[in-house]
């Protein structure tokens, strides 16, 4: 870089336009010794964009020692808090390399420097800092002591627990420092007994954190304190007590947990307001609180709470916990939901099906069968899915009837319901319910075939293919020749069962000549798993198909066969087919490159070099990945020109591959590209690549 260009960059850094300054910061990598100083100066830039760019460049710099020095020095800039905070951010980004300098800075006479050094150490989470942070719990400044406690919490070292416990339980200490210590102990999953936390439990500010610690305690007195806390005046403390009690229960022995649950129930029955509070907060609290409250209300086991918990579960984020809580209530939930069913909102009925499935009681089974005719599709699908777990052979006629109804309903898109019914029928037939269920199901489905619509036949094909019944086999022949391509495709896919077909059955081979491309694609997929001697001949035929999607499927199947092949002539032929496909149109060539990448080895990389001549970015990226994984030095050399490719994603991929493979010869072309690169993402890739290659 000549002097004039340096002057331009310096000038731009002083520009009133923040974008000009940011671009100047980006170009600062081209400068040498002067660059660091200028970058650190920009940490105090009024624009956050410029500060962020400066942080990124400093973090990416290979001169870590020097960077650490200047950043630590920037912590003492008392006049500019923005610059100091940006320096902390950059130090955290630099990671472990700056820890020694931060430890030095933590001994500074300047309280702000000590505090910021601790903040940076907290972000880096390096265990080498633990000893110094423990010392700093005795710092004369309470902010530093609090920050040190926070940092020990994030660093996560058990050796810190005694010192933090001492700080947390010291009555003379400032409350905010004690709070930091208590929270750090919670983060470290520390165990303290109730007596030690007595004074903290008496302080409204510290009580929630103290309760959280009691939830981890095995001290019998802890549970008593938490039970008492359920009736406290402070809502945050009550909620902390609830959460802590749930934690205690999760850890307790079954008998102990049972006793504790009884105590909670007695307390609520005695008129505690905690249940009412929990119900109110269930509607308005944050997600994390709602999750706790649902579990707590489920714990109370009262029938009156079943519906509120169910309704709360309509929120997708709460559904799993709500169903879990209701499932744990067992018969009470089953009976209540069955009775309340007619009045349940639509969305809640679907969730109720999940709960009923878990209860496995006779009422649940009956209700789920009735729900198959629910006006709400979501509820019907939920009932169908629930029956997959609990349905017996008695459910089969109702499910097949529903299959016919859904298949013949032109009013709505029944795909999801039909698929769910197919899966449930399969689950019931493949379950340990005896051959009679299989035969009964086979009869029911075969009887439906003559009048079934297309979607219904698709599901029938799915199910019949899995049934070991003679009638099912006969019907599969018909479905493989069905007028609907969707049905034929499903029937072909159904041939792909475990274990892999021993030979390519005739019906499968003829599917390779189907008039529907989708059927041919499915057949190629199945053929990939066949060990028949004619497979490669058939796939070679398919690789000349008129439809590119079919050719791509054939190529993927060839790659799968090659992966299975022990070596020799079969593998060689697969490589030849994949190599030929590299010359084909986009989707086919991409399948070939991905196939070669999956096969691995130098041969794959060498063959893939042909794809570097392609114009399609997606193929180029895939080829670069393949060569990056398997190529030798000669192959990697061929990638170098692509760091300046016109397509940004190709430049980025090529740069990344060269960096990952440590190709030092790539540094000059990458540096040349950096001087003109305008794309932010590619610039960041280049900077990381240079840091890796030069470091």
């Amino acid at each position: 870089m000549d002097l004039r260009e340096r002057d331009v960059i310096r000038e731009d850094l002083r520009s009133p336009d923040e974008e000009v300054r940011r671009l100047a910061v980006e170009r600062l990598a081209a400068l040498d010794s002067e660059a660091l100083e200028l970058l650190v100066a920009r940490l105090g830039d009024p624009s956050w964009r410029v500060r962020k760019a400066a942080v990124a460049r400093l973090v990416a710099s290979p001169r870590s020692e020097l960077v650490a020095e200047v950043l630590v020095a920037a912590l003492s800039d008392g006049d500019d808090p923005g610059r100091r905070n940006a320096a902390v951010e950059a130090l955290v980004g630099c990671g472990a390399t700056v820890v020694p300098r931060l430890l030095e800075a933590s001994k500074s006479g300047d309280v702000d420097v000590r505090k910021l050094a601790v903040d940076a150490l907290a972000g880096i989470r390096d265990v080498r800092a633990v000893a110094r942070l423990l010392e700093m719990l005795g710092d004369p400044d309470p902010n530093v002591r609090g920050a040190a406690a926070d940092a020990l919490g994030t660093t996560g070292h058990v050796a810190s627990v005694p010192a933090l416990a001492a700080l947390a339980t010291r009555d003379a200490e400032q409350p905010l420092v004690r709070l930091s210590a208590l929270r750090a102990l919670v983060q470290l999953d520390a165990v303290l007994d109730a007596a030690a936390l007595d004074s903290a439990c008496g302080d409204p500010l510290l009580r929630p954190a103290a309760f959280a610690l009691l939830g981890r305690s095995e001290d019998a007195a802890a549970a008593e304190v938490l039970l008492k806390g359920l009736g406290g005046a402070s809502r945050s403390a009550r909620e902390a007590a609830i959460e802590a009690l749930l934690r205690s229960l999760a850890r307790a022995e079954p008998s102990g947990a049972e006793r504790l649950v009884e105590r909670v129930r007695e307390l609520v029955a005695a008129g505690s307001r905690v249940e009412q509070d929990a119900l109110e907060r269930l509607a308005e609290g944050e997600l994390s609180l709602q999750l706790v409250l649902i579990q707590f209300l489920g714990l109370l086991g009262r029938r009156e709470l079943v519906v509120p918990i169910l309704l709360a579960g309509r929120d997708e984020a709460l559904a799993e916990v709500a169903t879990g809580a209701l499932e744990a209530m067992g018969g009470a939930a089953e009976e209540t939901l069955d009775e309340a069913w007619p009045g349940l909102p639509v969305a809640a009925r679907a969730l109720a099906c999940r709960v009923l499935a878990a209860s496995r009681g006779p009422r649940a089974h009956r209700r789920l069968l009735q729900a198959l005719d629910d006006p709400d599709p979501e509820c019907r699908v939920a009932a169908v899915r629930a029956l997959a777990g609990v349905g017996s052979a008695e459910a089969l006629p109702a499910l097949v009837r529903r299959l016919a109804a859904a298949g013949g309903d032109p009013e709505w898109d029944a795909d999801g319901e039909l698929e769910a019914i197919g899966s449930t029928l399969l689950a019931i037939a493949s379950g340990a319910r005896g051959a009679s269920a299989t035969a009964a199901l086979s009869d029911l489905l075969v009887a439906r075939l003559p009048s079934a619509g297309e979607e219904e036949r698709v599901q029938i094909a799915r199910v019949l293919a899995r049934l070991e019944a003679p009638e099912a086999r006969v019907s599969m022949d018909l479905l493989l020749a069905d007028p609907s391509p969707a049905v034929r495709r499903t029937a072909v896919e159904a041939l792909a069962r475990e274990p892999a077909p021993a030979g390519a059955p005739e019906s499968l081979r003829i599917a390779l000549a189907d008039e529907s491309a989708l059927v041919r694609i499915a057949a190629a997929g199945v053929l990939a798993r066949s060990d028949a001697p004619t497979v490669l001949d058939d796939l070679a035929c398919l690789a000349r198909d008129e439809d590119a999607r079919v050719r791509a499927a054939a190529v993927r199947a060839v790659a799968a066969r090659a992966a299975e092949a022990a070596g020799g002539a079969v593998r060689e032929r697969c490589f030849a087919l994949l190599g030929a496909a590299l010359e084909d149109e986009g989707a086919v060539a991409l399948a070939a490159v991905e196939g070669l990448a999956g096969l691995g080895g130098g041969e794959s990389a060498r063959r893939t070099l042909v794809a570097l001549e392609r114009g399609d970015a997606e193929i180029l990226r895939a080829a670069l990945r393949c060569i990056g994984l398997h190529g030798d030095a000669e192959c990697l050399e061929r990638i170098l020109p692509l760091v300046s490719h016109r397509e940004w994603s190709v430049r980025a991929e090529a740069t990344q591959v060269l960096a990952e493979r440590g190709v030092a010869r790539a540094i000059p072309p990458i540096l040349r590209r950096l001087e003109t690169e305008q794309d932010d993402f590619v610039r960041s890739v280049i900077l990381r690549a240079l840091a890796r290659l030069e470091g």
Partner: protein
Amino acid sequence: MFSDLLRDHCGLWFSPDLRYLLEKRVASRVRQLGVGSFAAYHYLLRHAATGDEELAQLVDEVTTNETYFLRERNQLSALLHEILPELAARRRTPGPLQIWCAGCSTGEEPYSIVLLALEAGLHPGRDFRLYASDIDRTVLRRARAGVYRAASFREMERRLQAQYFVEKDGAWRISDEVKRHVCFAHMNLLKPSRAGLLGPLDVILCRNVIIYFDLESKRRVIGTFAEKLRPGGYLLLGHSESLIQLSSAFQLRHLRSDLVYRKPGLDEPRDAWHALAREAASSFGPEEDAA
């Protein structure tokens, strides 16, 4: 120019006196697509990304698919009562004989073979496997559906129709008992790679198909058949078709019911097959007179 395009693609040949038919059908596609002119449509066929798909559509439009059940019944009878027994007796490897109906149109021919085989007491699937192909996807769809109008039954006895078809709303649906024995495929006879999927064959029926091809295409198709047939295998053409000037790979054979072509066996004395066929016919399934 459309005639040349179709000939190169699938061998279909429109002689000058039939060009008006082609023009009519191309004009229909031009109108349906709204491309404005024959030239624009020709450009679309040759150069557009959807050209191959449209060419297949045009083939669907211009192919002739007139057929019916039990058409040229003498020949079908010869197949079942003379050819299959002879081949079965000569067969050295286990497994069903392989039959290919090349140009099956809407399925009447392959279904007729299965139906007659069932009547003759044979076991389709065990005794023979039947493949049926056509280049026209529309007719294949109809063949797979297996639903027919009265015109398809002009040569079929009421008894057979009642036994193997179910009537609904004025149409007859073929029974699953027949339907499940036919494997349909989409094939262009001028592009033999897909035929490779069928494996070696014992009998090929290609009746009333190559009459629509030009001479060169006919030769190519017959060459493919000669390659696909096992030595001693049979080629059944339509009654108005012959291999004169087309191929010397086959011998013309006179059976009781019909004339057929046969690919010579590898090491059997010429003409010894006929005595063999007669002998086999007497021990293979019930025989009935050709109607």
